[in-house]
């Protein structure tokens, strides 16, 4: 046979063998270097700690002395809450918080990123001129030391009256420029001295001006942010440490717009080409208490984590590092929490009810049921006009009757298992906009039937289905996004309830993109959906009659002249007290009119590992993670 082991084969094996040995040697060498890296890292950590200690000493001695020689008042010190926490007996710095995410982020670069996960990271790395106190929800200075608002709305409106221009219907459009028109609102901010970015460069008024111009640059991929910021005509530096925002039109959220703009460092973001910035996956640097390990290197698939900014200008939060782990599968998420691999577990209601009484869970975790300020509400919208003709829902009494024929309290309890609050309007129950005196329409089937009969709907041919005077049976479809079990059950419940009133309902689940298309063309009878809310919500887009155009969010073709007037007035009223009165009146009208059948605001249900202290419910939700801490003897990820 010719299968002998020849010279050629020998050399082949020799070369292969040498290659394997080389790879092994390379691995060993790599491993040896790791020791050095580890040593350098631990030394650097020590130095950084030393640095923080020093700068805190200097800061507490001098920083505020420069500001009129007094200690800051509790109200104006952005860190009064952290200072209080530091006085707690078990307070300690160190350890990590690891949360699980259901989806992953594709970029962490501010403005470009669109998802809530990236926003979560950015909120810890970037800071704003002012922030809402999590307990009182009032604005408190952060990067600024104070502000002054000049409200010139009256002169502006007078001028508009004398020089009428057509108001654009596009909610994002602004009035054409006119140099003679008075500036309606001007806001001055004084920038706090001594603030530094995480690379040590000082934060100045120039950075604030830069941030605004950067957002407004058409080449930057930030169309959503520009939709809001278009209300500002320009931002200028008007003093050594003063910036001034000039508005194009009065807008109730004008202060929030400026105050909540995350300030970007000019020296860092200014050096990128717009195209490179748009396509970047992790250009993130700011003045916040945390930073990315490298301000440019993050990419999807890397660990999502921020570490303490050792150069932080304020009081550094207790936790060393905040980590997000992407776990798609629900079972895996719960198992990781039980294993102690992650520290928080947001449970769906069904799982929450089961885990609530689980002794193992009770041993290792605290649980919280709370309303988050950014939580949303569920509703069913009635299409009042289809193909130019009014539908059955155009009659207000029909909409009211339908709401009354459905036991919304029971519906809510079945789907959220009681972890929600029935709502009567689009405003968050945490907000001052919400009129607490508004009572939900009662559940009363007989009354509902009577109202339907009064509106002309009775069973004329005895088939159990009510008909209009023209003989058309009252039947309609509820359209909802497919694949979400709670919508499915909700629609079935409504179908069941309305069949008792003689109305036939069909379920019409649709894939999300088809769903969107239907909405845009108003091609539906009724839809079920949810909106995200905020501490103060603008309802212009959903309920103002100018927003009925195709693609607008008033896809019900709802119109109420009084409400239109209220919304217009509220949006240009800067005085909070007066504005809240208008919003509350709008809330009453919406409950009366029922353009939506408002359903509920859901509660967030969260388990948090027991080793964290100072996790409490506040008005805005839970205490932020920057205020959690772990006593030294319970720390898991850092050894002391």
């Amino acid at each position, binding site marked *: 046979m010719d299968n002998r082991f020849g010279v050629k084969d020998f050399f082949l094996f020799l070369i292969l063998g040498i290659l394997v040995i080389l790879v092994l040697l390379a*691995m060993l060498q*790599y*491993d040896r270097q*790791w020791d050095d890296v*580890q040593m350098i890292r631990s030394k650097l950590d020590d130095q950084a700690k030393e640095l923080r200690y020093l700068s805190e000493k200097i800061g507490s001695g001098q920083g505020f002395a420069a500001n009129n020689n007094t200690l800051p008042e509790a109200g104006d010190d952005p860190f009064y809450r952290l200072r209080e926490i530091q006085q707690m007996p078990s307070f300690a710095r160190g350890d990590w918080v*690891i949360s699980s995410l259901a989806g992953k982020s*594709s*970029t962490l670069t501010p403005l*470009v990123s*669109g998802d809530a996960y990236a926003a979560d990271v950015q909120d810890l790395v970037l800071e704003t001129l002012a922030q809402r106190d999590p307990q009182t929800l009032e604005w408190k200075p952060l990067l600024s030391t104070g502000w002054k608002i000049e409200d010139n709305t009256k002169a502006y409106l007078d001028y508009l009256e004398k020089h009428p221009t057509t108001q654009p219907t*596009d*909610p*994002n459009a602004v009035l054409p420029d006119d140099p003679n028109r008075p500036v309606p609102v001007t806001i001055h901010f004084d920038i706090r001295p001594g603030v530094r970015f995480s690379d040590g460069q000082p934060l100045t008024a120039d950075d604030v001006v830069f941030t605004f111009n950067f957002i407004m640059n058409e080449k930057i991929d930030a*169309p*959503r942010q*520009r*939709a809001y910021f278009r209300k500002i005509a320009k931002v200028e530096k008007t003093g050594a440490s003063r910036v001034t925002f000039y508005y194009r039109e009065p807008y109730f959220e004008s202060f929030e717009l400026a105050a909540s703009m995350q300030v970007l460092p000019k020296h860092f973001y200014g050096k990128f080409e717009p195209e490179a910035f*748009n*396509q970047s*996956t992790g250009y993130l640097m700011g003045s916040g208490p945390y930073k990315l390990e490298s301000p440019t290197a993050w*990419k*999807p*698939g890397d*660990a999502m984590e921020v570490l303490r900014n050792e150069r932080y200008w304020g009081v550094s939060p207790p936790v060393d590092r905040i*980590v997000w*782990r*992407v*776990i*798609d*599968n629900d*079972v*895996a998420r719960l*198992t*990781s929490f*039980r*294993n*102690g*691999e992650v520290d928080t577990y947001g449970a769906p209601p069904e799982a929450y009810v089961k885990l609530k009484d689980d002794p*193992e869970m009770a041993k290792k975790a605290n649980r919280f049921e709370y309303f988050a300020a950014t939580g*949303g509400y569920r509703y069913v919208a009635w299409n009042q006009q289809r193909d130019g003709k009014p539908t059955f829902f155009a009659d207000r009494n029909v909409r009211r009757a339908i709401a009354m024929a459905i036991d919304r309290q029971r519906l809510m309890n079945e789907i959220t298992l009681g972890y929600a609050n029935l709502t009567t309007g689009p405003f968050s129950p945490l907000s001052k906009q919400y009129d607490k005196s508004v009572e939900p329409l009662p559940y009363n089937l007989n009354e509902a039937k009577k109202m339907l009969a009064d509106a002309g709907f009775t069973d004329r041919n005895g088939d159990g289905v009510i008909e209009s005077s023209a003989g058309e049976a009252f039947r309609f479809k509820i359209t909802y*996004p497919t694949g*979400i079990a709670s919508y499915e059950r909700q629609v079935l419940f409504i179908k069941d309830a309305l069949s008792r009133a003689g109305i036939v309902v069909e379920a019409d689940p649709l*894939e*999300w*993109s*088809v*769903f*969107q*298309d239907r909405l845009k063309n108003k091609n539906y009878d009724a839809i079920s*959906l*949810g*909106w*995200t809310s*905020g501490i103060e919500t603008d309802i212009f*887009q*959903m309920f103002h009659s100018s927003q009925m155009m195709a*693609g*607008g*969010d008033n896809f019900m073709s709802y119109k109420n002249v009084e409400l239109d007037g209220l919304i217009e007035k509220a949006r240009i009223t800067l005085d909070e007290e007066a504005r809240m009165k208008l919003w509350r009146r709008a809330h009453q009208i919406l409950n009366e009119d029922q353009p939506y059948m408002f359903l509920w605001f859901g509660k967030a249900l969260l388990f948090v590992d027991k080793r964290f202290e100072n996790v409490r419910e506040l008005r805005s939700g839970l205490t932020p993670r920057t205020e959690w801490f772990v006593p030294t003897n319970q720390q898991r*990820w850092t050894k002391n």
Partner: protein
Amino acid sequence: MLTYIVRRILLMIPTLIGITMVVFFTMAFAPGGVGAALGGAEGNMRPQEREALRKYLNQRYGLDKPVVFQYFRWVNQISPVGFIVKDDGSYGRLTIKAPSLGESFIRKRPVVSIVAETLPVTLLLNLVTIPIIYAIAITAGIRSAQHRGKLFDVGVGTSMVALWSLPVMWVGVMAIGFFASKDYWYLFPTGGLHDTLASRMAFLPRYVEGTFHRGYLLDVAWHLVLPVACLTYGGFAVLTKLMRAAMLENITADFARTARAKGLPERVVIYRHVLRNSILPLITVAASILPGLLGGSVIVESIFSINGMGRLMIEAINTRDRDVILSITLVSGLISLLCLILADICYAIADPRVSYE
């Protein structure tokens, strides 16, 4: 042979155009349309932002242009020979240019970099999986054929069909529940490819002060155990049956009897004579198994939170991210066609009777 290969490669171009056309137009004519999914999964986008985003995307990617025009625009973009696109969107002269896979509507990044992030992960999973499947299936197939009708044959056949019929979705979740939970056996991690502290690990395993540290390399291997197990168990049945059938055909053939009669030991007869002649059907299957696995790991990737191509594809389909879907189709189409050519060449090598002259 060479002319044959060149001809086959040239034939790939119209095939690929056909594939992309089907995908492109199916997507374009589907209700809802391309790029319609601009909201969050539950419509949780603030109302002010939606319209602004829609307009921006239309303008940037020409989504409001006629569909046929959009397709040619895409073909022009991926073709190495085409028209240059100027900054204002108009077309310049025809030249040789760098082909581009386009940009993701949702992530606004070049598709190449997105695919480059996920492809290695999926390849790692599959390159570990395929040899395991083959090694086990081939040995099991050979032994089943040798012991035809005996306990081993029946046992292996039954259990492999049983494994094949277990859905991955369920097995994966059960595996996490039992093998990755502190309540049962905490043998493996729940998901991901790296430990939380992986960035601080040394590369190789080591003992430090008497305690064992597994190191980065072992950490990845440890994380791969459950996902790879889930990917492999379903693949045994088909290959084992195939191997067994092919072996049985040859094990009683004349040449095998001659070999035995020559006095060759049974081991040599089986491995040198029978096996060689039974390997052809496996090559055919191999050509289709690689592209299949590229997409087939979707479920495993999502159960174990591994950031691979399968997940990317599902995400892109849900958000109607056109350029990403087309690019993945193009890449997997290309890999399939190349595998088919490779299989043809392998036939010629494995079987001297096959020739393409």
